[in-house]
């Protein structure tokens, strides 16, 4: 594809870059440090005498042993100041997803349709309680049941559980299913104790088998960006209980040998899990089942457009092939032709991985998203996401020093880039560049999961959400920041300058002696 002269001019034009962007920034203390003793936001009403005469002192109704000896240390702040406090905090954050591009790769940051928020906000949903009689919640049960059908169609598998509350819990549940399956086959940990993964797979992929008692075999990529079949074969043995990989993984590369690899694992008696966190690269175009996998999980808060950030809420449903359905978590939603109900009679189940039925608010939003798109719409999501990523690639490749990591040409939804040349020539590393990119009104760009085996990494993922103009703006900002590395490196090294968050030296982020996870620790650090 050749860029037209007009497009080139637009990309180069400085007007594309928002020099004037400033995030609201307040030097706002913690709520505990506001107000003064005795100050109140709300004054509780005294109990009326008539009632008191009947019930006595309400405190007498509580067992003495659970009464506090000292009052709780709560903030004492008047209502106007409290209102200002939260307005200021929200000004630093509000609408970040709508006012800036958010190229946080591997997190698939996409637009969260506000109409779906409305659906999830309705009291018809929010007033439900998980302990209600099934007869009274047939509506939400129907939605959940039908959403399972969507996931079956998307993966090719016959059974689904919506219970896991996040991606890592989904991976963990699948790992427990492998363990139960192998034990039922007579392959306990004394016979099959190894799980294979790749170094570019998401961190939960090696962590959950380790939690489940397995040894983890990690494959490193070749110059192609993915491990050769030979490496997989060196890893596979009679001790292989299973394999978990992303395909594509965070390099955006689809392993072309995946069918041969899954077959080799099956031949050794292992099961194959596809980590579908990168589903934006193949929605509606490829399915886990046809690639030879036996189970998968999704991150609804990534691929399915439900909001995420700040650690939740998420949802990590799983899907498995027919003979593995008996291991799914309890309870399982079923339909007898007339009514939807929870089936607790699953003697082979791995058990409960989360109380009740999953993060239903997230599931409801994801259901609305898939329903609004339909099958063709989902295919279009992937088409647009891949097109956007490759358009961004074309723009970024023209910037000196910005290089695609690994040789494989075809990339799907994202690419891991390396900025080694810029670092070598200017001393500015990719984390400092990412912080500077934020100064132009763009959300955080993802560097890489650990370990950083691509040096000076950067992984933007434009998703289907962003327009051509927004992608061009992002590329122009990266170009500007690279130029700054050569012209005014100190500005980049001390970025961000325009965000609510100030510059935080990278090394302190990993120094437990400098991190305050709560106010008590913060106060101690202040005294030092």
């Amino acid at each position, binding site marked *: 594809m050749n860029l037209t002269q007009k497009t080139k001019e637009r990309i180069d034009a400085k007007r594309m870059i928002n020099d004037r962007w400033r995030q609201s920034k307040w030097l706002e203390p913690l709520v505990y440090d506001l107000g003064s003793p005795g100050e109140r936001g709300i004054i509780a009403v005294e109990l009326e005498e008539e009632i008191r005469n009947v019930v006595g002192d309400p405190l007498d109704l509580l067992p003495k042993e659970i009464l506090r000896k000292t009052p709780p240390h709560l903030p004492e702040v008047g209502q106007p100041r409290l209102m200002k406090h939260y307005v200021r905090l929200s000004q630093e954050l509000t609408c970040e997803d709508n006012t800036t591009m958010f190229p946080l790769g591997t997190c698939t940051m996409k637009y969260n349709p506000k109409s779906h928020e409305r659906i999830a906000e309705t009291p018809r949903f929010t007033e439900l309680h998980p302990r209600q009689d099934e007869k009274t919640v047939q509506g939400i049960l129907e939605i959940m049941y039908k959403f399972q059908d969507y996931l079956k169609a998307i993966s090719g598998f016959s059974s689904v559980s919506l219970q896991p509350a996040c991606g890592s819990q989904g991976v963990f549940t699948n790992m427990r299913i492998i363990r139960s399956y192998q034990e039922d086959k007579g392959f306990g940990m004394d016979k099959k104790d*190894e799980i294979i993964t790749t*170094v570019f797979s998401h961190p939960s992929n*090696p962590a959950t088998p*380790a939690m489940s008692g*397995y*040894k*983890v*075999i*990690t*494959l*490193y*990529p*070749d*110059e192609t960006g993915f*491990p*050769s079949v*030979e*490496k*997989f*074969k*060196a*890893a596979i043995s009679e001790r292989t209980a299973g394999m978990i990989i992303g395909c594509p993984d965070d390099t955006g590369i689809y392993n072309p040998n995946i069918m041969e690899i899954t077959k080799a694992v099956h031949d050794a008696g292992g099961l194959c899990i596809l980590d579908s966190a990168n589903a934006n690269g193949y929605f509606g175009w490829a399915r886990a089942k046809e690639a030879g996998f036996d189970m998968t999980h999704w991150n609804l808060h990534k691929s399915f457009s439900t909001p995420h950030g700040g650690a939740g809420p998420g949802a990590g449903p799983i899907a498995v092939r027919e003979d593995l359905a008996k291991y799914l978590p309890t309870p399982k939603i079923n339909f007898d032709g007339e009514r939807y109900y929870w089936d607790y009679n699953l003697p082979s189940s791995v058990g409960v991985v989360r109380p009740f039925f999953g993060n239903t608010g997230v599931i409801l939003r994801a259901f609305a998203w898939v329903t609004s798109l339909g099958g063709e719409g989902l295919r279009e999501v992937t088409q647009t996401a891949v097109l956007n990523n490759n358009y961004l690639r074309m723009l970024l490749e023209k910037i000196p020093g910005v290089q695609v990591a690994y040789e494989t040409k075809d990339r799907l939804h994202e690419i891991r880039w390396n900025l080694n040349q810029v670092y070598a020539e200017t001393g500015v590393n990719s984390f400092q560049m990412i912080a500077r990119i934020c100064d132009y009104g763009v959300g955080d760009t993802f560097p890489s999961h650990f*370990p*950083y*085996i691509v040096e000076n990494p950067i992984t933007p993922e434009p998703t289907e959400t962003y327009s051509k103009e927004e992608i061009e703006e992002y590329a122009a900002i990266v170009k500007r920041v690279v130029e700054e590395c050569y012209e005014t490196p100190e500005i980049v090294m001390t970025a961000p300058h325009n965000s609510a968050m100030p510059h935080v030296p990278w090394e302190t982020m990993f120094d437990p002696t400098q991190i305050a996870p709560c106010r008590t620790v913060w106060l101690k650090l202040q005294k030092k």
Partner: protein
Amino acid sequence: MKKIGFIVNPLAGIGGSVALKGSDGEEIVERAFELGAVCKSPERAISALKKLQPLKDKIEIVTCPEEMGENEAKSCGFLPVVIGSSFQRRTQASDTIHFAKEMLARNVEMILFAGGDGTARDIYDAVGTELPVVGIPAGTKMHSGIYATSPEDAGELAFLYLSGKQLKVKELEVMDIDEEAFRRGVVKAKLYGYLKIPDAPNFTQGTKGGGHQADDQFYLKGIAERIVTEMEQDIFYLVGSGTTCRAIMEKMGLENTLLGVDVVLNKKLVMKDVTEHQLLELLEQGKQSKIIVTPIGGQGYIFGRGNQQLSSRVIRKVGIKNVLVIATPSKIQSLPQHRLHVDTGEKEVDSMLKGAVRVISALNEVAVLEIV
């Protein structure tokens, strides 16, 4: 016509196969010869120089007398310009410095030299970053990143530069360790300076990573725990050099040689700091044996760098399948392109070792890397 300087340190690497940890100093060289060591550096220099034969009519080789380059150049069919005349003594470090300076004065475009870390230091002392160089790996210790991955690659790299196909250069570290301290089991790596080399990362080995990070202790302990737990009875374990291998010996409470090979049987030390010859004699006993090695950080060599006692003949006797490779995750991540290398001196053994290999990286973790 382009002029290229060519220097061979004929004594480089002579201490390696007889467990002397290096070849610096006259006394060590004499001791090596007494122990039956043979000069392999000239052979490796010839393998590199052969790659320049296509440029025979376009380049002029400026070299040193006799075994320091003249003999090797002539054996490859070149008619070199020789600086000075023959000397009736063993060559010394000062000879390398003298000839390199002379070559600089004669405006050579680059220097191709064969040696180890000591030779690299001498070249650095003589020419600094005045002109590009290519190192042919021929020493015992090669912590410096400037060396090509093999003699052939060194020749190829020089060819690319001289034929104008790879003109970009970069500076890489010249490192060496204190050999006296090294023989006492203490690694004191020091950065001496930088040399300019043609910029082609696939041809050069990279600089050895310096030691383990703090959290590596966790992984080191895990590796040691796993190896010791899985040790079988009546099998000789030939435990290689480096701090990763040392952790295994420490786990068993055994004395060990940081930069040598120790032999363990039934969790007891049976031989310490063995030579290749001693190993071959030991293996004649007919017992099964296993080799435990770790790659050099930042480079990835598991054989042929600092552990020449584990020669191709030893590896053949032990069997390729009985080679256990260990490395912490951070060491693996320090390896260029996460690859392992071998340079046993015998092409056939090198190719038998090549391919995917399991590397034990923690108590319950294994990485699969490729030996290239």
